[in-house]
C-alpha cells in the first residue's frame, strides 16, 4: 500500500457515503404501495431480532440472560431505554461474577 492517508480516506469515505445515500435515492422511484409499506415496517423488527440473535449466539450465558432480561424488563417497565440500560448492568455484573 503506497497511497497516502488522504487518498485512503477519500476512497473509504466515498464507499461509506454511497451506501448511505443509494438505498434512499433508489427508494424515491419506488411507489409505496400498502405491500411495500408492510415490508418497510417489518424491516426494523427483523433487523433488531437479527442483532439480538447474533449477540446471543456470539456470547455466552451472561449475554443470553441479559438480553432475555431486557425483553422481560421492557414488558414490565414499559420503557425500552430503561430496560436496555439495565440489561447492560446485568451483563457487567454477570461477567464480574465470572459467568
Amino acid at each position, binding site marked *: *500500500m503506497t*497511497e497516502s492517508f488522504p*487518498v*485512503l*480516506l477519500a*476512497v*473509504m469515505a*466515498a*464507499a*461509506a457515503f*454511497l*451506501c448511505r*445515500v443509494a*438505498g*434512499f*435515492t*433508489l*427508494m*424515491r422511484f419506488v411507489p409505496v404501495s*400498502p*405491500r411495500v*409499506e*408492510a*415490508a*418497510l*415496517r*417489518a*424491516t*426494523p*423488527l*427483523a*433487523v*433488531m*431480532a*437479527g*442483532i*439480538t*440473535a*447474533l*449477540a446471543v*449466539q456470539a456470547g455466552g450465558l451472561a449475554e443470553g440472560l*441479559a*438480553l432475555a432480561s*431486557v425483553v422481560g*424488563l*421492557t*414488558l414490565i417497565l*414499559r420503557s*425500552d*431505554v430503561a*430496560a*436496555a*440500560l439495565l*440489561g*447492560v*448492568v446485568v*451483563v*457487567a455484573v454477570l*461477567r*464480574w461474577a465470572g459467568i
Partner: protein
Amino acid sequence: MTRALFSLDGFRRGARDGVPLALSIIAYGVGFGLVAAQAGFGVGQAVVTSAAIYSGSAQLAAVNLLQTGEATLWALFATILVINARYLLFGATLQPWLWSAGPLRAYSSLLLLGDANWLMTMRAIRAGEVDRAYLAGTGLPITLGWLAGTALGAGAVSVLPRPEALGFDMMLACFAAGMMTAMVKARADLLPVVVGAGTALVVAYLVGPAPAIIAAGLAGAAVAAAVHREAA
C-alpha cells in the same frame, strides 16, 4: 410540494433520545481508537477517519485490511461497500418519511445515520413522530460520542477500563432487544422477529456476521410483503 415539519423542537427531542445511545457509542469509539492506534494511526487520523466514514464496523474492517499491507484501493472500497450494505436498507426504509422534508435536509440527515439511530428513528416514526429533524437530532450526541471515544481510545488507551468489563459492547444488542419488544404490538409483528432471528443465525453460520443483518432485514421485509398480499 408542501414540506414536512423540520423544527428545532424535533431536533431537541431526537438529541435527548440519542443520549443513552451515545454512551455506548463512546465505548465503541474507544474500541476503534485502540485498534487504529495499534495500526499506526495518530489521534488526528483516527478522529478524521471516524468523522469521514462514520461507521464503526466498516472502519474496523478497513483498518484490519490496511494492516495486512496488501490492500488495494479497490479492495478497501469493496470491503466498506459490503460491510455497509445494510445502509441501503436503512436509507430505503427511511425514504418515504424523510424525503418529504426536502432534498437538502433529507440528504444532510443521512450523513448522521448509523445503526443505533436508525433503530431509534424507525421506532419513533412508528410511534407517530412527524418532525423530520428528529433523525438529525439523534445523530448529534452520537456523533459527539463517536468522535470523543475515538480520540480517547487512540490517545489514552492504557489508562482506560476495558469497555467489555462495563458491558458496553452489549449496548446495541440490549437496545435492539428492548426496542424490538416495545415495537411488537400485534401477533403479526412476531413474524418478522422470528424470520429475522432465524435468517441472521443461518446466514451468520454459512457466510458470516456482516451479511447476516442485511439478510435478516430483507427476509423480514419479503415475508411481510408476501403475507400482506395474501391478506389483501
